[in-house]
Each structure stands twice: as C-alpha cells, then as structure tokens.
C-alpha cells in the first residue's frame, strides 16, 4: 500500500528547497574551488554565474541518509531483518534520524572531496536549504495524520482522535526555517564553514530535543530518538564554542 502522505512529504521536502534555491543559489563545485584559491579554504560564499541544482546536490546524499538510517533502526530494533529485502523496505517502521544525517553529510563531503572542494565548505553551502527541506518534512505532518502533541484548543484533530492536539511538528518546522534563514545570513558574512555546520547542527538538535518533550510516546522514559538529539545538541554546543574560540585566536 502506498502511503500518499509520506510520499507527498518527501516530494515537498525536496521540492520546496529546490524552488528556494533560485533565491539562495548553491555555488557549483568549480566555483567553490575558485573560492578556495581566492578567499582561503574556509570560504563558501556562492558567486554569481553557473549553479548546480539542489536536487543534483542532495539526491544521492538523501538516498544514503535513508539507507543508513533504515539500517541503523534495523540494527538496533531487529537485526534479524537485515538482509530481508521486504522487511528493509518498510520505511515507515523507522529511519534513525541522526545516523541518516551523518550519512548524508559524509556522502556530500566525499563528493566534494572528489571534485577538489573542501568537504566542510560543501556541507556548509548545502546546509540552509537542507534545513528548509527538513522543516518542510516536519510541517507536512498534516498529510501523514502525524501532527501530534499535547491536547490543546487551538490544535488539529488527526484521524480517529476526539481531542485537538497542538501540532508540535509544525512549530518545529517553523523554528528550523528561522534557523536556516539565520544560517543563510551568517554564511553571507563569510564566517567559517565549521561554524556554519556546527550552528546548523545545534539548531536542528535543539529543536528536536525540545519538541520531543511534547510528542506522544509509549512509557515514561525519553525515546531513543530524543536521547540521541539531546546528545547531538550537547556535542554541537561544544563544537560551536570550540569553533568560536578558534576563530578569535590571533593568526600567526
């Protein structure tokens, strides 16, 4: 059975940033190589001229994210299912978020390195649009009957529920979009790529960590996804701090 809501969410998650890329162009590999030689290895400011499309840049890394995220879920929940194609294809039964993000970033970095571009520069250039894609996916919970949250008079009523629930996913999406806009602005000030990447990581991890407190779950403890997001947020705080300290150190 095709899950039309999930299919639509994925189309929107790739389609909306693709449209937005006309206003936030992604520098091509060639241009980024040029930036490296002219403005130093940490620069990633896109120049005018020829640009690659968002889809070209993220399709393979998106596929890597789904594959690795799914394998991570199976390894943690049901290792015996690894290798059984039918079991592995049921995406809705879980795709681990952060292993998927790590795989996507690793794939983008690998592709950049092959093209002679600094891996972090490439990841930083793609990050704001990718965050918009993630925000659109979260906000499109309305098509998946998945806009859950605490009972509220101003919420939505997913199928089969008597009470209205505050749509935490939509609020998370708005917060990530605001973070993406801030990051896009930050990138225009030619800040270092490690700072852009660590700030993006912190925004997404913080939004997921905070949002997860209000999402329905079974049992009293934190879900595995929630624990992972808290851990990633802590790592991101350290990375942001370290990058800021490094950037303030006087050059020799």
């Amino acid at each position, binding site marked *: *059975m095709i*899950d*039309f*809501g999930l*299919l*639509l969410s994925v*189309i*929107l998650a790739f*389609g909306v940033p693709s449209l937005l890329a006309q206003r936030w162009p992604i520098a091509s590999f060639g241009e980024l190589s040029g930036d490296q030689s002219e403005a130093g290895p940490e620069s990633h400011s896109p120049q*005018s001229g020829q640009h690659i499309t968002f889809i070209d840049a993220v399709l393979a890394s998106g596929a890597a994210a789904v594959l690795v995220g799914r394998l991570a879920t199976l390894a943690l*929940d*049901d290792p015996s*299912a690894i290798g*059984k194609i*039918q*079991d592995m*294809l*049921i995406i*809705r*039964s*879980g795709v681990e978020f952060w292993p998927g993000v790590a795989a996507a970033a690793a794939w983008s970095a690998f592709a950049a390195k092959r093209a002679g571009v600094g891996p972090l520069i490439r990841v930083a250039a793609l990050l704001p649009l990718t965050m918009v894609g993630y925000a659109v996916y979260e906000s499109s919970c*309305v*098509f*998946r*009957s*998945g806009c*859950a949250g605490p*009972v509220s008079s101003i919420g939505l009523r*997913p*199928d*089969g*529920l*008597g*009470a209205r*629930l505050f749509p935490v996913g939509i609020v998370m999406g708005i917060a990530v979009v605001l973070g993406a806009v801030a990051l896009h602005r930050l990138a225009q000030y030619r800040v270092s790529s490690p700072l852009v990447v660590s700030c993006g990581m912190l925004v997404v991890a913080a939004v997921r960590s905070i949002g997860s407190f209000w*999402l*329905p*779950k*079974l*049992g009293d403890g934190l*879900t595995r996804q929630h624990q992972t997001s808290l851990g990633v947020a802590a790592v991101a705080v350290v990375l942001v701090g370290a990058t800021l300290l490094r950037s303030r150190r006087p050059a020799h």
Partner: protein
Amino acid sequence: MAEPQGPTASGSRPKKIVSYLVGAAVVAFLAYVSLFGSQSLPEFTPTGIAQPLPHDGSVPAVSLKDFEGLLVGQQGKPVVVNIWASWCPPCRAEMPLLDHAAQTFAGEAVILGVISNDDPASAVAFLDQLNISYPNVIDDSGEIRRRLDMSVFPTTYIFGRDGQLRAKVEAGVTEQQLAALIEDALR
C-alpha cells in the same frame, strides 16, 4: 550582468512552466488523497455475551460471535485490535511497538491481536519468537476481517471504553499515533 536571451533560453521557459504545472498537479492530487481519501469506519458495534480474554499463552480460534464477546467483556477499557499475519513484514515490524503499548497501558487499555489469513502454527511460532505478551486469537474463517472491512495487512482498530469503534489505522501504526490514539481513548 543580464542573462543571455538566446533561442535556448526563450525555448526553455514554456518547458519550465509546464514542469511547474505538472509538479503542482501531482502535489495537489497527493494532498487531496492524503487529506480526504481516508476510509470511513465500518458500522460495527460488538454485542453478545461477555467472554474473557485468552490467557497463559493460548491462541484459540474464534468466530465473529466469540470475538464480539471478547470486546464486550472488556467494555470500560479501550481495546486496540490489531489484525495481522506472520507473512506480512509490516505486521511483524509493528508488533514490538504493540507489546510496548500493552506493557505501558497494562490495566488501563487492552491490546488484542487477531491472526488472519495465516498458518496458525507459523503465527504462534512467531509470537513465541518475539515473546509477545498480549493476547492473540485466530480468525480462521476470515469473518472478523471481513466484518471490519479490512483491506490491508496490518490494520489496527481502536475501540473506546463504550465499545464503539473510534479509529482505524491501515498499513502500520507509528509510536506517536498509537500513544495519541490510546491516550485519547482513555480521556
């Protein structure tokens, strides 16, 4: 600097418009199906003599009448009925989640598995393999599945405290959905 306006640039504009229109039509169609394509609930109110749930790991074959008796026997608590088969991968994927729900809401809500269109020996072996703790019964004639208008494996039905059918989730339920549906039925 102005973009070149040669024959290629002017020819690609109608193509771009057509691709945007096709994309918008696909999105509109999927949005319509997702928002308004949900199936209505079957008219089904369990009646009959109350029966106790099977215990001690027994997995009895039941008729539709027996099944209604099981639901009547649990009135006062929400009941989650999950119809499944061991040959169906999404069914197997969601069973640990249902078992987690059975433990989380023990005493407040009931999870009842219904094995249908399956070899009973394979299904029972699978229950043992996963160490499933909630009760299961076998719908060997398929009449429970047909009466509940089931068309996709697995399908999960939520009955309220009053025994009325409240919700139907087809092709796998997520943790958030399951928790929200049970908590809503408990309110």
